[in-house]
């Protein structure tokens, strides 16, 4: 029996080895992989909105211009490549009373007079109420770079305000007005392909995340770890963008469960219900409102996951330090003295206590587990009297609560390394 068991364990090992990337999903734990994953995605859904909000805002005016879905702001590298260099920055968190002149003043005060400032006004209320952000175009890419470096710094002259900056995804060269005619041009190619990465250690940096993916998928070009807007603490998930769709799909398959900073990461599709990043998009600007065919498919790891061997909860039966036996079915004539005569030769007894009636039993505790096991083996079903009473033994506990686990040696490490924890894909 034992031998079979071991062989079988061997089988597990082999299987694990040769499956390779295919079932990296296994490390998700058997119990509720799908659910766990979904939770993560739900969790992802919520921050996404905040994350995307500037872009949505950006889209809004673009729609207003009847522009095609422009290159995502993720794709600044492409846009750099395509448009020499970006000189335009997005600037958010504007005070309500600011207008173009005010923003220009701010930048001039910082020593970087912008070439052009465009505040995005509420539709129909231009000059009166803006949408809280604007675009600032600098003369050179270097200036824009320097300006971006100031992100997070306090705005001089406006207490409590901080610079909130990012690259304007549209790229200064094109400009919102410039791509008005570029409907659909190169939309698919310019778009990045992102995956969601969950279960990150708080210590994981964007560089480390990117490096991990680049080891295997060279087209990984950007990684982002999402942080809490208020506290700045990492929220345990992020996104990795790929240049090639094939790599994105491979990442979904192969990076599942790769270990980063000692924790297995989860990889999921970044396309939420409102997501557009994996959509190949294309077509006219109307596509933003038109129902798009969703290429969402369940990642393969959700179809099957190997179960993980788990330690059962510690009870008087599973506690391997438990040296307490319970003898049941004792005849009335069997008392502590009689039990002692039966049990004492097999090891040092620490306790013999009769159960309170009407239970016809007794607790017998040995000093050592070994003795208890021996007693259980040799005395099980030992006849006690002429009326057919036999000793019936099982593991017991001296107290109702399992105090034995406190005094017993610590439990050993699990017999099996949890399956699939060495990511061959990484």
């Amino acid at each position, binding site marked *: 029996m034992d031998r079979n068991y071991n062989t079988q364990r061997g089988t597990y090992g082999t299987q694990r080895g040769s499956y390779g990337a295919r079932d990296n999903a296994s490390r998700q734990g058997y119990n509720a992989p799908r659910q766990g994953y979904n939770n993560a995605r739900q969790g992802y859904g919520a921050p996404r909105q905040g994350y995307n909000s500037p872009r949505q805002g950006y889209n809004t005016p673009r729609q207003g211009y009847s522009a095609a879905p422009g290159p995502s702001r993720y794709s600044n590298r492409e846009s750099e490549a395509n448009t020499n260099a970006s000189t335009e920055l997005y600037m958010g968190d504007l005070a309500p009373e600011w207008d173009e002149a005010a923003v220009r003043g701010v930048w001039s005060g910082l020593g970087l007079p912008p070439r052009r400032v465009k505040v995005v006004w509420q539709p129909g209320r231009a000059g009166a109420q803006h949408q809280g952000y604007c675009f600032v175009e600098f003369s050179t890419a270097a200036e824009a770079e320097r300006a971006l470096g100031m992100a997070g710094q306090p705005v001089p002259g406006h207490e409590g305000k901080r610079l909130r900056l990012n690259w304007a995804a549209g790229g200064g060269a094109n400009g919102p007005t410039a791509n008005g005619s570029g409907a659909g041009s190169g939309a698919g190619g310019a778009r990045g392909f992102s995956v969601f990465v969950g279960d990150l250690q708080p210590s994981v940096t964007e560089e480390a995340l990117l490096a991990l993916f680049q080891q295997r998928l060279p087209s990984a070009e950007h990684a982002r770890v999402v942080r809490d807007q208020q506290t700045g603490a990492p929220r345990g998930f992020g996104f990795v963008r790929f240049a090639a769709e094939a790599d994105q799909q491979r990442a979904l398959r192969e990076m599942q469960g790769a270990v980063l900073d000692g924790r297995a990461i989860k990889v999921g599709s970044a396309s939420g219900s409102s997501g557009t990043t994996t959509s190949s998009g294309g077509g006219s600007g109307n596509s933003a409102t038109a129902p798009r065919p969703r290429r969402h498919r369940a990642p393969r790891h959700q179809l099957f996951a190997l179960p993980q061997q788990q330690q059962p909860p510690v009870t008087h039966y599973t506690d391997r330090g438990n040296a307490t036996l319970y003898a049941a079915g004792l005849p009335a004539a069997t008392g502590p003295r009689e039990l002692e005569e039966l049990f004492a030769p097999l090891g040092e007894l620490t306790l013999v206590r009769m159960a309170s009636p009407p*239970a016809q039993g007794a607790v017998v505790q040995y000093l050592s587990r070994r003795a208890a096991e021996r007693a259980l083996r040799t005395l099980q079903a030992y006849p006690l009297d002429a*009326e057919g009473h036999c000793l019936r033994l099982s593991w017991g506990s001296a107290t109702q609560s399992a105090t034995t686990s406190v005094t017993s040696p610590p439990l050993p490490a699990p017999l099996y390394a949890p399956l699939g924890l060495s990511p061959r894909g990484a």
Partner: protein
Amino acid sequence: MSNRDILAQDALVGLDNSFIKENPVFVEGYRNIDWKDITSLNNVLKSVDDLLKIYPTPNNKIKTTVEIIFRQTLTRYPLLFGYWKKFTAIEYQFHGLEASLKTLEDATEAFPHSIDMWCDYLRVLTLNFPKETDLINKKIAKGKELIGWHFYSHPFWDLVIEYYTKNGIDVIPTYNEVVRIPLHQYAKYIGEYKKILKTKKLAAEIKKVDQLAKQNQALVGAIWPYESTLRQTYFNLTPLPEAEPQKWTKYLQYLIKNKPNKRELIESVFERSLIPCCYIESIWKMYLNWTKSLKKPQDVELLTRVLKLGQRGCRVLPDSDRDFRLSYLHYLENEYGHLEKESDLLIAKYFDQCIQDVIKIWAYKSDQIIVMQKYLRMLKRTKYGSSVDMSSKDVLSKQTEYSKYLKSSIDDFIGNKSDGNVELGKLINTTNIAVVIVELIKMTWLVLKNVLQTRKYFNAFSKNEFLKTSVEFWTMYYDFEKSTKNFVKLNRFIAELGTSIFLPTDSVNKILKDYREFYLLNSTISQYRSTVVDEIEGPNKKTASIMDPVIGTLFKADNPRWAPGSAKQRRVNKVEWYKGAQYRENGHPGISTDRPQITNTIIERTSKSFRNVAPGLPTFRNLEKINQTGSYRDYYTESLKSDPK
């Protein structure tokens, strides 16, 4: 009707069905009564009260029911004086004055040291039956003896004096008595006494009284520090505060040490302490020891008191208190034979009674055996005793008679025809019969020296099921065969240990160790060859049930069921045992039946046997079972679940 019968009665038996239906609270309360819980008792008695409010003139059936309930309660706990009072009132309502007086009289007998009961009784008696002077005087004398020295007995003395004054009886002797007793209200009686003496102008007496008063005052002053600390002087079912028995013990120790002459006082304090502390073994022991220490040789009256006290203790104390009972039995055994015939008879009588009680309440084998051994020892001394001056013929006939008596008792028990007349027959049960048999064999073998008969007895009794687990019997058998050096039989006996004779591991080990030594010392190599080696390895080998006394005994130590080839035998005997899931799985569910399986032909892709065809899909089976819990009988949890606590 004996106490046992009263307790076994079902009070609801005679009731009408309609009545039972109409009073579910009362019926349920009685059916589910927990005699150890005072609130449960109170509830039942309260429902009885309610019942009597609904039926102010109950019929006879209800009356009987109520009476039975009260009797059951008071038989169990005679010290609950509140219930006695209530019962008296109810009896008065049911049957009138005479019955209530009778109840009060019962109360003073069942709870003789209760001031309340005595006062109630005397009050009713003197008020309603003032002409029964003889009875009243008798009862007053009895009351004086029982509670006169009680520290708070002034209501009783007041009653007595009042009665005497009313009926023109001289109170001076009574006062003379009272002023010597350390009472809580001692000053009052001294004042009254002096007043009476003054009116009668007995100046000399007054002086005497003054002196007595001084002494008494000193005594009261001495005991007051103890009396004042006592908190609970009544009986209750709730656990006694721990400090109370200690306070009583200190008080008693002080009295015994410093006032050894105040016997009445000490006895009264003992009796009072045993009202709240009636389940405290140490106080009973102290009381018994003190009473024993009073005894002058040949004083039958004192001896009777000791014996009665011991018996009372044995009956009142919880069954688990062994020390008091064992020491009492020991005392009886020791006393017997050193006194006059009358005393000896008395002791023998109490000894028998105590043994009968004890055998009933102590179920454990070790206790049964000890008690039976004690009983037989005493039996031999009382009924079949012999002394130095008897002729050897007489002695032998006594011993033969004793053996015959034992034999007939055993036969009666085994043949299931105990007629109840034989004293011993009443005591024998399946646990202690081995002791009687061993005694019989001992007599036959060692006293009467009848080896042939002994062997016959062994042959006859060894088939008896009761003796399969008796250490005494088989140790005797082993000794007997050892004395004859019958190694064939001894070898067989050793082999049977743990397979058809089931002794405790400890005894098995001792026998095995002893036998190994004995065999090595007393057997010869040729004997070993012929009886053991040839049987096991020779041409006519009989592998089963032959035990090698040198090697086998070592294997068998600590493992009483070990036998040569036992593993094989077991499998033959129980064909099915290894088929059970519990055995096969051994705590790993599904390991043999639903083992997890994974197939994946692609693993073989680099091997030659992998043909160049599309590999089958991987398959998985029963993987989820690795986290199932094992199946086993957990007697511990089962037992806890069945236990209501």
